[in-house]
């Protein structure tokens, strides 16, 4: 196995709980809703403006492991996504700047349902640790079946010049074998 270490979002120090309904909480909620609507509307350039330039964006693999080994069910060596700002912008460029990104042309019709939002402060001034649930429905072509992608987002949001930006996202998926033919969409 690879000797390299992988930073997990568990390393993000969670401080004080930010109360549900507080101004800060509402700003986070507003950010998540706006982000979801931009992604669902395929406004990818606008979405990318919400990203911090030191973004780390990852989606670990999952494995079926016994109750006593649940930590081992999250795999952070090989992952489904393991990107930084530059590579995410490369993906956005492929989807928006070419005429042949066939995996999303014609595009999927998606809904990102974001719930169960919990916010806390971190050890870093101006940064918030945000955990939320994601249920993403994906419809392609004329199939009546929706691909479902469910998971938990573990984000770090940061105030940059008064605006929230996404600095870290890790999505802990629920499926060990994904039921969608690719992740040509952002989670």
């Amino acid at each position, binding site marked *: *196995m690879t000797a390299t270490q992988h930073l997990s979002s568990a390393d993000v120090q969670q401080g004080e709980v930010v109360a549900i309904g507080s101004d800060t909480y509402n700003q986070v909620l507003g950010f998540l809703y706006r982000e979801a609507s931009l992604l669902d509307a395929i406004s990818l350039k606008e979405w990318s403006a919400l990203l911090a330039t030191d973004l780390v964006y990852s989606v670990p693999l999952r494995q079926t492991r016994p109750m006593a080994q649940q930590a081992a069910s999250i795999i952070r*060596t090989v992952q489904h*996504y393991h990107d930084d700002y530059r590579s995410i912008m490369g993906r956005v460029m492929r989807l928006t*700047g070419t005429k*042949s*990104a066939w995996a999303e042309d014609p595009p999927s019709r998606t809904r990102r349902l974001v719930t169960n939002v919990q916010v806390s402060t971190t050890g870093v001034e101006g940064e918030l640790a945000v955990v939320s649930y994601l249920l993403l429905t994906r419809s392609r072509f004329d199939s009546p079946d929706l691909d479902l992608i469910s998971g938990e987002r573990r984000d770090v949001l940061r105030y940059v010049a008064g605006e929230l930006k996404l600095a870290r996202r890790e999505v802990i998926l629920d499926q060990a074998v994904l039921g969608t033919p690719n992740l040509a969409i952002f989670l």
Partner: protein
Amino acid sequence: MKQTRNVLADGTSIEDLVKVDTREIQMRALSDHEIYNLEMDRVFGHSWLLLGHESEIPDENDFVVRDMGSDSVIVARGKNGQIHVSLNVCPHRGMKVSTLDAGNTPIHKCIYHGWAFRPNGDFLASPVEKECMHGKMMSKTELGLEQARVTLYGGIIFATWDHEGPSFEEFLGDAKWYFDILFQRSDKGLEVLGPPQRFIVRANWKTAGEQSAADGFHTLTLHRWLGEVGNYAKSGEEGGADLSPEMYGVEVSSPHGHALRCIDLGRKIRKLTGLDPDELSVDQKLEALPPPGVTREMLPQLKRNLSEDQLKVLVSMPPQVGGIFPNVLFAFVYIPQADGSVLGLTLLHAYVPKGPDQLEFVNWILAEKDTPPELKEKMLRQSIQLFGTSGMVEQDDSDTWPHMTVAARGARGRKSTLKYQAIYETSKPAGWPGPGIVNEGFTKDDTQWHWWLHWHELMLANV
């Protein structure tokens, strides 16, 4: 009897699914339940199948659960480091013995009635020894998990249910000379960089299988974006969105359905060195562009493990993509980087059949064991960004195969044919040192056609 076993329920003979004269395949082969069920015995029951890499289970009692065709198997390391592949079906009442993906255990105990098995599949005991819950009609040696025949090749685990069939070497045949260049070139061999990515594509396994048998044509259109943005687009002395220069090379196929696309490194070496590659020695070319996962410090290993002829192919026209019959794709690719350098990547895929209209895409990302950690990390990151689940190249492939599968269900569509009529009229390049069916020039259909011929041969032979 033989006759009727080769005729489908509607009277179509399996013989007629393949039109040898005109190089056509009846599309029903991509959707038909009956054909699928026969394939599970005749193709998947008689081929060597990729299950993983031994670096996934480094320690005694380590195991992973994988699939051989439509059957789940336990791949476990037993005593003395030996790797065993056992049918993951309890001989008692048919329960799945291991319900996990991976782990380490000296005993695989069925949760239903408690029958217990060793990593080598041996039946250890049923609970309440004195009551002999498993009865007295069969001895313990008869109650073990069914064993597949296993081989390791460059640490890659292959297994087959065909205990009397060809050895793995015979199965690879002439293609082995080329596969050795990829899998047997370093002292310590390859290792996985983690467990495989897994996802479901609603497509027949053969849509992916035949493409892996070196479909060169699809690069031009399906992967056209590579010529529109990024490092291929700007690299061109050719310029623009024209990927056709990438489609020239040498294609190798074999009567066993294996295929390799050997793609010219000349332009890359010229760009890196500013020199005419024809003027450079093998050593100079290796220095200029070492193969995926190999550093300049590791070059002496290549010289120890490969023949001069193999080195010559490796530095000029290396196998970069292709397939191992029936359902494996390999990629040993050289990816241009923004800074003008080249990063090599090493991947293996298995397209596991999950019914006539579904496959599981299993993607292993590998490097040489001796590849330095920083280079491994780079290979891992870029492999994830280009290949597999979210890979910007392969996401277009996995969105294509379902359409073919649906089309093959149509009343007219199933009678339509896949055509493999672009035939090489060249032969091997002058001085080409390798064996096999070899042709040079612009990509053609021959390698995929040979894949189908072997499929046909197995579908007719194993009755």
